[in-house]
């Protein structure tokens, strides 16, 4: 009997694994836009991972003899005012920008989820207090709050991440709160309690995962936002430190060169920035479908 079940269980489990993979592939194939966005994301990831080792020039190396060169075969995206290769800088910046956005979103995801889940599940005064605190953050002009935080803490990558995370927390918390709230008394929640789960387990393992699909859409929007936010901070001089290449700074600095005709300085980083944000935003629906088992057939 035991042997039989072991044999049975194994293929079942194996089937389940490939089922997930098949599901992902199906989601990607089903909607061309989603498929496209994931392909672009893969491209971004690859350039973040191996970009620094394949770029043709050292992104920090200046070259006084080749400043402000328009795009050419040697410098695909041209060079900047110090003769640095814009293409190399754009590619190398991918990693930092992804790190900033992913880290910021991860932080706000975790904290926002915990806060929102507790508020939504517990209700009562905890909910009231938490909601007021979140309202307070939301009542701030968010970009200015981020500016204030970075200005106060100093403009390091970590602080940019913290600032971005803080201003995003309310969005996650509210979303999770609402999602948890509607499932607080759902049948499967009660069933989970009947199965001997403590409140914490019910919340963490049964209710919360069901809030994931809508959160994925939020995550994708926020990933894009985080990059734009960092770029905005750079624009007003609160970005990461030079000479580190970062898209926002490159666009912000390059912006001053547009009118003088050196359009490539802002255009290419801007294009990459836009491409990344675009990719993130488009990925939302796909991500949601992937984490949503109800979309499986």
């Amino acid at each position, binding site marked *: *009997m035991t042997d039989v*079940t072991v044999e049975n269980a194994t293929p079942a489990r194996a089937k389940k694994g490939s089922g997930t993979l098949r599901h992902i592939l199906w989601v990607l194939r089903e909607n061309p836009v989603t498929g496209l966005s994931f392909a672009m994301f893969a491209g971004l990831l690859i350039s973040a991972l191996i970009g620094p080792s394949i770029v043709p020039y050292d992104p920090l190396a200046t070259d006084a003899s080749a400043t402000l060169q328009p795009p050419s075969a040697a410098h695909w995206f041209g060079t900047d005012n110090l003769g640095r290769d814009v293409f190399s800088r754009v590619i190398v910046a991918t990693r930092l920008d992804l790190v900033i956005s992913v880290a910021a979103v991860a932080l706000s995801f975790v904290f926002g989820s915990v806060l929102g889940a507790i508020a939504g599940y517990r209700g009562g005064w905890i909910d009231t207090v938490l909601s007021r605190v979140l309202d307070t953050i939301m009542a701030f002009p968010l970009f200015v709050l981020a500016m204030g935080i970075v200005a106060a803490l100093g403009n390091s990558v970590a602080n940019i991440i913290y600032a971005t995370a803080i201003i995003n927390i309310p969005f996650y918390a509210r979303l999770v709160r609402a999602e948890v709230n509607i499932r607080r008394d759902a*049948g*499967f929640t009660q*069933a989970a309690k*009947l199965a*001997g789960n*403590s409140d914490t387990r019910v919340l963490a393992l049964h209710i919360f*995962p069901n809030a994931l699909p809508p959160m994925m859409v939020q995550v994708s929007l926020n990933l894009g936002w985080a990059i734009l936010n960092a770029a905005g901070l750079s624009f007003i001089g609160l970005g990461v430190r030079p000479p580190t290449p970062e898209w926002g700074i490159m666009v912000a600095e390059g912006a001053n060169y547009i009118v003088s005709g050196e359009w490539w300085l802002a255009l290419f980083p801007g294009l990459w920035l836009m491409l990344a944000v675009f990719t993130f935003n488009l990925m939302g629906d796909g991500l949601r479908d992937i984490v949503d088992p109800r979309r499986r057939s």
Partner: protein
Amino acid sequence: MLSIKDLQVAFRTRKGEVSAVRGISFELARGERLGIVGESGSGKSVTSYALMRILDANGRIKAGDAVYSGIDLRKAAERDMRDLRGREISMIFQNPRAALNPIRKVGHQIEDVLRQHARATRQDARQKAIAALEAVKIRDAEARYDAYPFELSGGMCQRVVCAIALACDPKLMIMDEPTTGLDITTQKAVMDLVDELVTARGMSSILITHDLGLASEYCDRIVVMKDGQIVEEGAPQLLLSAPQHPYTRKLVDATPRRGVTIRELLPQEERRPLAPHVVAETPLLEVRNLTKTYQGKSGPVHAVRDISFTIREGQSVGLVGESGCGKSTTSAMLVRLLDPTSGQLLYRGEDLAQMPAADFARNPLRGKIQMVFQDATDSLNPRHTSRQSIAEPLKRMTDLRGAALAARVEELASVTGLPEHLLDRFPHQLSGGQKARVGIARAIATEPDFLILDEPTAALDVSIQAVALNLLADLRARLGMSYLFVSHDLNVVRMLCDHVIVMKGGEIVDAGPVEQVMDSPSHPYTRELLEAAPQVPIPTAAA
């Protein structure tokens, strides 16, 4: 008046074309009341949408003819169809509250139809709308004109929907499960009203339902649908007493009614003898002065007021009553998901009410008191496969792990008749009956002594309900469990339970052995309930 020939409807979906209706034909004479019955998904609704040409964008009539009073419904221009809808043919849908625009005054919604079909002008629209409301016997129609749907009860909403449907004196009325979601007493009142109006105006009607009782009570002729086809049609009496098609027979058999045993709901070939269950004298659960008061926004809500009863070991107790009478609240307290405001819950003499519900998860008795939920879909975590759902209580409350756990899950699946290959499916990939089985398997996983069944079959088709009820009866006999069976279907309670409790407004108004309470009801409310339930005029299947 209406003649349909070989109608076929198909939908384009991601998985290719789905044919929902595959060549049905029927005729409807002037003044005739036709019933369409069949299980869920058999194409009843789609047929009616096709007649009205209001199919979803991905659906289309593939073939066949539908002619209404000489107009070819399939070929008619959209303009003409629009003119037809509401004026010649009207529809009423299930879930009346959702069928009304939530942010528009009901009077205006009636006016919209009147004005659209030029039955009213700006000046007299209001007056005609009020007249339409009065026609459906809404009290104080003048005042209701300005009401929004959320300010009305379910029954009143359905009357408004009727008023909209009848506003332009249509010749044909299509009712798609008009009473689902309504209380049994309200259901009767609404159906009686509609029937009266339809008859009085000499209209034809089509009643779509899966309740044979309802159809036989309010229709002159019934067609039975299965998988997009009509399998049988005829007068109710004839059809019900001598069903020709096996499917019809199955349907007729499965319909709960007076004087049949639970086994007789099943198709004949599946009726194995039912092992008797033993009711001991020892009380398993004694409920004493149980009270639950919610702190609502507008003052306290007394959901359960001071109820007491006893459930003995092996006994099945039915709990009936109208929506909102406190059935679910009571069961939630018994199963220790909810703390009572006051009162005692003596489980084998131990007062469970002393333990806060929040801590009960760690109590060894947790596994002994389990529950099957009203809505199987809602009670399964959409992210868990059947296997995970069934294994959950075992993992939490037993030491079974790995292969032993898998074996136990499979055993439970086979006990509840769930095919093994369904264990790795997610709830949305299961049918209603299958979901119900998963719910039951999960509830009995820890071999509880006491099982609460909160309307476990309410969302199921009759034939599936029949199987589920029999399964429960078998399990009871096999495992010697006690049941508290919550339901509003008195016929079901009669078949499954030994004892019955009738609740109203949070109080127990009547209680006693099933036969006594049901056959010679003493309390007027019990009588009202019994009368409202549609009775299937089938002579007890002799065979």
